Every structure is written in structure tokens, then in C-alpha cells.
């Protein structure tokens, strides 16, 4: 990498210090930005799905709906007793009255829970990995027939589906951008060769070797792509940070799950470097191939 960027002795005086062509580095920056965003989206969704699959899938909420308060109390005690005994349950947490009121408010309006309405009981539980939910469900129904069991994963199925679609689009965009970046580099190097064709001709006739000429173009392509990549990455980083702030403000457990690890961020940071290396290679091959056609 460093070897690609180091100017050759006296090279400044050999070829013009112009960019590949006017708009190309900026377009590379934009495509890099899109590629980084798409890659970030893919990684974030993968992380989110892993969390949903791993974490949320094993959480259930049990609700007791029983108009008779005495029976309700019996079932509630039986349920909590069973759940606390059951070795397949990792964690049990009864939802308090305040929390319940907050959850039910949208259904019941401001009047809240009154005497004419039974107060349901609600318990959150986490099942240990590897245990079938259906088995636990049957046993719960046996001790508390009024229980109604909610599986978080099932409730989140449409979200997971939507996330899958978004991920598919992100992967598609990423693939398109990578192809486009490669194509842009090839086209830009060719255009640069065209622009500097007479310079190349003259230097060639003065005895410059193919390697000498390629050296310059490969360095320039690398510098331009590194520039575009760094700008693109920088803007992408800014946008991702803004987005993470927004997600944090949403207080959504689900969106919160779709975060990027340090390893992911490091991976994204390599994008410009990989781009520059690829650009240098593309430039070298293009230049040497063009020169081969000359005497």
C-alpha cells in the first residue's frame, strides 16, 4: 500500500499532477458512501437478526385473563410457583400494576382499570436455549388454564420479514456499488490515459519503460480512490452516527439490537484502502495493456 503511494524520485516532474478527471474522485466518494452505508445496513441487520433469534425468541409473556378474582389469584400463584421451579426457565419477572396500566391504556382509554373490569396478571419469562416453547406452553396451561402465552419472536415476525427485505436491498446496493466502483475506476483510468496520451507517447519515445509510466498512473488512481474512499467513509460515518442517535432516541429494543460492533466498524474502515489497492492494480493493468499495443 505504502509503496503504491510513495512518489518516485523526480516523478513530480514526469507527469502532470492532475486528478484522474474532474468529477471522478467525487463520484467515487459518493459510491463509496453508498457502499459503506449498504455494508453497514447489512451488518447491522445481521446483528439485529442474531439478537432477535438469540434473545427475543426465547422470551415469552404470560397473561392471565380471569374475571373471577379468587380464581385469578390461585392461578397466578400456581403459575409463578411453577415458573420459579421449572429448570427450563432462566428468568421470571412479574409485570407490576403500574406497568400493566401503561400497557393497557391504549385499549382502555383514560378511565383505566375499574371495578367492572378484571385486572389481568402478566409475567415475563425467559426460556433457556434449546428448550421447545411448545412444551413449556402446555405445562403452563396445565397449572393456569386462563393463561395466554405471547412469544416475542412470533410477534416480531413481520419486523424480521421487513428487515430481511431491507437487508436484501442493502446487499444488492452493496454489490452494485462494488461493481460500479470497479467499472468507474477502469473507465476513469482509460479516460486519463486518453487525456495524457500525447504525454505518454512522448515519454515512451524518450525511452520511458512501461513500468515507469504505469507507476505514475497506478499511484494517481490509488490516491484518487483513497481520496474518494476517505471522503465517502467520513460522510458515511457521520450519517451512521446521526442515525444511531436517532435510533437511541427511539428507545426501541429492536432497533437497538441492530448496532455495529467495533469489528464491523474496522471492517468498514478498510473500504477505502481496499478500493485504493484495487484501483492501483486496475490502473497498472490498464496502462500496461495499452502500452503493449504501442511499439
Amino acid at each position, binding site marked *: 500500500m505504502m509503496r503504491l503511494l510513495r512518489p518516485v*524520485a523526480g516523478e513530480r*516532474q514526469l507527469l502532470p499532477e492532475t486528478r484522474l478527471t474532474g468529477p471522478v474522485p467525487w463520484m467515487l466518494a459518493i459510491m463509496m458512501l453508498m457502499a459503506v452505508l449498504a455494508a453497514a445496513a447489512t451488518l447491522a441487520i445481521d446483528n439485529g437478526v442474531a439478537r432477535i433469534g438469540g434473545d427475543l425468541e426465547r422470551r415469552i409473556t404470560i397473561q392471565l385473563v380471569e374475571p373471577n378474582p379468587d380464581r385469578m389469584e390461585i392461578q397466578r400463584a400456581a403459575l409463578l410457583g411453577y415458573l420459579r421451579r421449572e429448570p427450563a426457565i432462566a428468568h421470571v419477572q412479574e409485570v407490576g400494576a403500574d406497568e400493566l396500566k401503561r400497557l393497557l391504556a391504549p385499549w382502555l382509554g383514560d378511565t383505566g382499570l375499574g371495578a367492572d373490569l378484571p385486572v389481568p396478571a402478566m409475567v415475563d419469562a425467559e426460556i433457556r436455549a434449546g428448550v421447545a416453547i411448545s412444551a413449556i406452553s402446555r405445562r403452563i396451561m396445565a397449572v393456569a388454564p386462563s393463561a395466554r402465552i405471547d412469544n416475542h419472536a412470533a410477534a416480531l415476525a413481520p419486523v424480521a420479514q421487513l428487515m430481511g427485505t431491507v437487508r436484501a436491498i442493502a446487499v444488492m446496493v452493496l454489490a452494485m456499488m462494488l461493481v460500479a466502483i470497479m467499472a468507474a475506476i477502469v473507465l476513469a483510468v482509460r479516460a486519463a490515459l486518453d487525456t495524457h496520451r500525447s504525454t505518454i507517447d512522448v*515519454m515512451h519515445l*524518450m525511452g520511458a519503460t512501461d513500468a515507469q509510466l504505469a507507476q505514475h498512473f497506478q499511484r494517481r488512481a490509488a490516491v484518487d480512490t483513497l481520496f474518494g474512499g476517505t471522503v465517502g467513509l467520513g460522510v458515511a460515518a457521520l450519517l451512521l452516527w446521526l442515525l444511531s442517535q436517532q435510533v437511541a432516541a427511539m428507545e426501541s429494543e429492536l432497533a437497538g439490537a441492530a448496532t455495529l460492533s467495533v469489528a464491523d466498524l474496522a471492517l468498514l474502515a478498510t473500504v477505502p484502502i481496499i478500493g485504493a489497492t484495487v484501483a492501483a492494480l486496475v490502473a497498472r493493468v490498464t496502462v500496461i495493456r495499452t502500452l503493449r499495443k504501442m*511499439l
Partner: protein
Amino acid sequence: MALAMSGIVQFENVGLRYGTGAETLSDISFTLRQGGFYFLTGPSGAGKTSLLKLLYLAQRPSRGMIRMFDQDIVTMSRDLLPGLRRRIGVVFQDFRLLPHLSAFDNVALPLRIAGVREREIYAPVHEMLNWVGLGERGAARPATLSGGEQQRVAIARAVIARPEVLIADEPTGNVDPDMAARLLYLFEALNRLGTTIIVATHDLHLLSRITSAEIIRIDAGRIPDPTGQLRNPVGVKPYRTP
């Protein structure tokens, strides 16, 4: 024959055809002596530049044999050409200065390509620019130089690396007669140091000035005398003088 073999350049039945048209050069045969001074003359469009292109290795002939520096140019490996090209200096008819480089850097280019160290570049380049009367204009880009000034930079660039063969295509078309005489003196000095010189020109004064020079006439792509030996002793003018 032994003498012919010692020639630095030999053409034998060389033909050149651009694309699919008629031959631009046909049956060109001649030998250039090492250390010789040659004028190449003939009407516009006769093929002078085309012949020089073969000499400075910008073009392969369509047929025939060319030897330079005792090597067969036509069949030789492409990798060896840069080495040969560095032994040849060229003044192009259209100068071909690099527009983004200063006059100084244009003249320094052959040295830099040959890998000469940076601190060994300044002195000779500056001296050469002085020689062609442009000592003060080293920093100027070609676009800000007059036609004659550009031509002089092109000449300085061609001779800076002391080539074994100097090829100049109409090198005085844009300078005044005094400057032309001065440049010709430069060529003569190089020639005396052993450089083989070939100058294509329409300038009749130039032709008459170097008494030791041989004149090669070319017309419609042919060198009229078909023996392949050099002809045109000095003094035979290719055109009527007014």
C-alpha cells in the same frame, strides 16, 4: 561492404504503409555512417517525417529490414526498445512539449527518464537553456512561449542527454535566420563529438551551411537513386534557389 556494416543505421528495401492506403515509403535503402551529418529533404508530404519515425522507433516498417546500433529493429524484443530509444534524441516537427511542465522540466525530462540523480540535473539543463537563449524562461510553461522559443526548448530537450543519434524534423521552421545558424552550430558541435545527425528540412540556407553534410532527397516516398548508397554530394541543391 565492411563500411556498410559499420553503419549506425541501415535500411534495406523498407516500405511503410499507413492503414490500407498506398505505400507512403517504398523501397527505401540507405546506410548512415556513425558520426555522419545528413540532411533529409524533399517536398511537403514526400515522407520525411515518416522516414524519421522509423528511425526514432515510433513506427515499424511494413516490410524490409532496418538495423540500428547493430541490432535488427524489426524483429527485436519490445523490452529492449527503451534502451535504444535513450540513445536517440528527437526534435519533433510539432515540438511535442509536455504542456504541464515548465521549459526547465521539459528539457530535464530525458535525464529524469534515464534515472539521472536530481542534483546532477540542474547545471546541464540550465546551461542548455542558456545556449538556446532561454536561460531566463526556464519556469515558463510551453503555452506562454513564442513559437520559436518552443522550438528551441524542443531542441534543448533532444540534445540534453548527448544522444548517439540526433533526429531533427524541420528544427528551424519557427526561428529567425540568426537563431537558425546558432542552432545549426550546436548540431555541428555535437556532431564533432561523435553524434550522428539527421535533419529533415526545407530550409535551403541550412542545407548549404554545413559543407560536410550529405543530402538525402526523398520524393513521393522514394529515394530516387536506387543504389542504396549515399548520393547527392554537397552543393547539389534539391530545389532551384530563387
